[in-house]
């Protein structure tokens, strides 16, 4: 469904993406993981056409993306930090996007809208919302138009446990419908239950892109965090990031 060919991007001195090639298909839940500043968000923004890569091609359904913007009709995007017009009310925001996308009411997906109880805050201006509520709005918007491809940038960051469970259930449901879902996250336990493929980025380079079964087989670990930690150590990436994350998690969670 999406093919990325030799994408490179440089922001002045910093090489953010370095010759990345990958291909994602339907019914996959691909997790993009990597330390901060490894280029995950930039890669996502390249797919959305918000960042223009210096070289390489991106094809969505076989169609090069720097031509017509209509390919974005199939994409639902949840940004890391949702920024919306201050004066616009929540209800207005949804109506506006619906109007712009020209999608009739019956074709919208209001599951999250109801589950997050957004109706209650429909009259509130966007600027008055808390960070978490804003995330709820972003998530709902991403799923609202039933897109075939979902791009979720740190979807569970900032959400309370209840909301993040609702969102995870929704992602699973959409996966069963045969959609392609791309997720970036630092919270590996969150994506553990969802993901089918792992793409690991470090300093703009793709270290590996494997499906979960291969990963589990190769490492002998069932849990994603440990499996990745093992790979990192085995391949001598000496990534402190993964160790730290595991430490915190062991203290916080009971398996």
């Amino acid at each position, binding site marked *: 469904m999406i093919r990325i060919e030799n994408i490179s991007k440089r*922001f002045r001195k910093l090489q953010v993406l370095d010759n990345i090639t990958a291909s994602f298909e339907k019914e996959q839940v691909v997790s993009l993981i990597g330390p901060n500043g490894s280029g995950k968000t930039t890669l996502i923004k390249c797919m959305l056409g918000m960042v223009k890569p210096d070289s390489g091609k991106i094809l969505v359904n076989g169609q090069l993306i720097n031509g017509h913007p209509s390919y974005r009709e199939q994409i639902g995007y949840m940004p890391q930090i949702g*920024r919306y017009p201050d004066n616009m009310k929540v209800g207005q925001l949804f109506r506006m996007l619906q109007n712009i996308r020209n999608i009739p009411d019956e074709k919208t997906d209001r599951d999250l809208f109801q589950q997050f109880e957004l109706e209650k805050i429909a009259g509130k201006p966007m600027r008055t919302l808390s960070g978490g509520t804003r995330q709820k709005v972003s998530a709902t918007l991403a799923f609202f138009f039933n897109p075939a491809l979902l791009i979720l940038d740190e979807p569970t960051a900032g959400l309370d446990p209840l909301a993040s469970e609702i969102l995870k259930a929704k992602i699973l449901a959409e996966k069963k419908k045969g959609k392609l879902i791309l997720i970036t996250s630092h919270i590996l336990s969150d994506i553990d239950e969802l993901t089918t493929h792992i793409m690991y980025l470090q300093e703009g380079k793709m270290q590996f892109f494997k499906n979960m079964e291969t990963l589990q087989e190769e490492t002998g670990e069932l849990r994603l965090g440990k499996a990745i930690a093992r790979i990192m150590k085995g391949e001598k990436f000496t990534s402190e990031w993964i160790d730290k994350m595991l430490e915190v998690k062991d203290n916080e969670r009971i398996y």
Partner: protein
Amino acid sequence: MMKLSKYVLYDIVRSKIILAYTLFLLIVSVSMFQMEENSSKAMLSLLNIVLIVLPLVSLVFTTIHYYNSYEFIELMSSQPMSRTRILMSEYAGVSISLLSAFLAGVGLPVMLFAADATGYALLFTGICLTLVFTSIAFLASVIARDKARGIGLALLLWFYFALIYDGLVLLILFSFSDYPLEKLTLLLSALNPVDLGRIFIMLKMDVSTLMGYTGALYKDFFGSNTGILFTAGIMLVWIIVPFWLAVRKFKRKDL
């Protein structure tokens, strides 16, 4: 495109700055016509308002609006909408609101008190200058990275067009006063929309008889149909070229 402009307009109207601007123009123009017994004297004062205030307000307002709606632009660019269309809608929204302020604030009084050739020339120039400086402001905001730089650049451009340019022209005229400069000054006027507008209106007024030989030459040129076409054409170039450059830059920009 109008769909999007509607939301841009809605946002602008809510901020009430445009309303204040309209009132300001209305009060100034009505009081000018009330104070001066001779309506052509009032027109002369109004001319200065149009030439100085209009570009300034158009530049600053557009720049601030652009940065304030950056979130909106970002949101739209992740939707199935081309960048060209986004920027054009923004342009339409801003220029429609500025033009309606001008037409209500200056247009109405002029129609009431001085509906003659000079009056129409003033309105024509005002409309052109609003569009020109909105275009230039879009170019400045797309180029500048942050709000402070953007507004700084806009103010600098205003200084250049309203003050510095005239100084430079005078300098040239003084240094080369031994040569026939009529044709050159005609050319120089085309390089600054404010000057062009000033000459265009002045020659419709009685004061033009005081300008001697050069005035006669100008009157000959600008009074004719070619002169009107020339002015309109140059103004059109000043509207289209900066905006076209802005769109070109905007399309390649990373959001």
